């Protein structure tokens, strides 16, 4: 089970993406838990996640969360703006899985 957390200002626009990502995951047969939260909950919710993806419009959150993320081994990245605009669940899911993989096997991907 891969746990993917999305965060934006109020968790609205990222939740659009959540349903698309779930569809993409179901199509691929990947076992995932994906959910979206508002920015004030991001710090506590990320403890339950394997990866945190931030809406590009809130990318200034990353700096605040990155220290704690690094300490817990949770990669944090902004979602690609183009994929975000297209609500491209497939692309964002791919990115999330890749980030989790890289975090777990840092040498494999290099």
């Amino acid at each position, binding site marked *: 089970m891969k746990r993917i957390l999305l965060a934006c200002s109020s968790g*609205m626009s990222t939740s*659009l993406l959540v349903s698309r990502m779930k569809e993409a995951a179901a199509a691929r047969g990947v076992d995932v838990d994906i959910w979206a939260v*508002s920015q004030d909950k991001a710090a506590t919710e990320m403890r339950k996640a394997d990866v945190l993806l931030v809406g590009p*419009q*809130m990318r200034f959150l990353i*700096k*605040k969360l990155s220290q704690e993320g690094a300490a817990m081994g949770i990669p944090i990245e902004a979602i690609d703006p183009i994929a*975000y*605009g297209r*609500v491209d669940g497939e692309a964002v899911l791919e990115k999330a899985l890749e980030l989790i993989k890289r975090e777990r096997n840092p040498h494999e991907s290099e």
Partner: protein
Amino acid sequence: MNQSKLMNVLEKLLLPLADKLNNNRYLTALRDGFMVALPLIIFGSIFVVIANFPFLDRLLSEEAYAAYQNALGPASAATLSIMGLFVIIGIGYKMTEHNGLEGIYGGVVSLAAFLIMTPQVLEGVTGVIPTSSLGAEGLFLGIFTAFIASELYRYFVKKNWMIKMPAGVPDAVSRSFSALIPIALTLSVFLVVRILFSFTPFETAQNFIYTVIQQPLTVLGSGLPATIVAVLLIQFFWFFGLHGQIIVNSVFDPIWFALNDQNLKAFQAGEELPNIITKQFIDTFLVGMGGSGMTLAVIALIFLIGRSRQIKELGKLGAPPGLFNVNEPIIFGLPIIMNPLVLIPWLLAPVVVTIITYTAMSIGWVPKPAGVIVPWTTPIGLSGFLATGNAWQGAVLQIFNLLVVMAIWWPFLKILDKQVYEKEKEGSKQ
């Protein structure tokens, strides 16, 4: 490319600014504090709306109508009208939690500090706290008090002054005193400040903050120039793909909420509403038209004149969330960010709408916002109706503004659509 160089420079300037404004711990606590209060504020607003349903005053007898309003009154009196209390608890809680201490202590110590600073007399009657000072009038004092109380509390906790218990006293007993000293010292500071203020011509801290800070700021914030600056800042941040509303709100919300509350009081008392610019002015007449930048107009235009397959797809994708004022698909998908072609309508349309709305309200064609808080996800039409105190003119103004925004965007969207359309045609030939 000179243009992209300029964009890069601006991006380098704006990102740290957004970072500072959004991640500053006082502003973060302030925003989170309002978030805590928001469900209560909305609950109160719903009952203001129900208490003032249109035509009820004509359907019911005067006494029945008064009884109806009185029965529903406590719902908003206990929430919306004293929102300062909840914001203060929220700020104190969130700041203290952020400082790594137990949040609830920060919440209650902030609340107690605020009550110490609040006048406890009304027209010669002692032992009462005027509810007006727990609402907008006390909002700024409350915010400052919560900041200072949380910081003092943290300072005194970190000092770790403990009451030494004799050996043999269970550990749990001495720990139960651990919050006592920091809280006692923090509140003592506020008591001293209160006493000192009583020797000044202002008499109370509340009066001092209100006269020296809140009054000038709200007067400034209620004007058209400051509002246009705020609106342009929001649009400007968004142009660089940064959440302008969140960033600008952290500074403007106290002012907009305070103005809102003044209107609510007047609305409930049946008096003339003092302010046009309020939280609702922004949320309903600017954000409430499809999201920041009023992109519902863009979606409507796409359906009307769009020819390119890609842009029409985007319209379909953006329409359902757009109705509820979530517009990231349009902003990132059209795209609006970093797209020089749409910079003019993106900046111009909200300013024009601000001026139209302000004018329509100041000459009395459309009622001013009644001070109820309508969630920003409320669809166009309904939000305008509710925000203006159940007035159809509010809904009509929103629709009119939507047409204006469509007219402003028309030529620019046409060019953009043509560019994409032609690229698609070339692509299909190959």
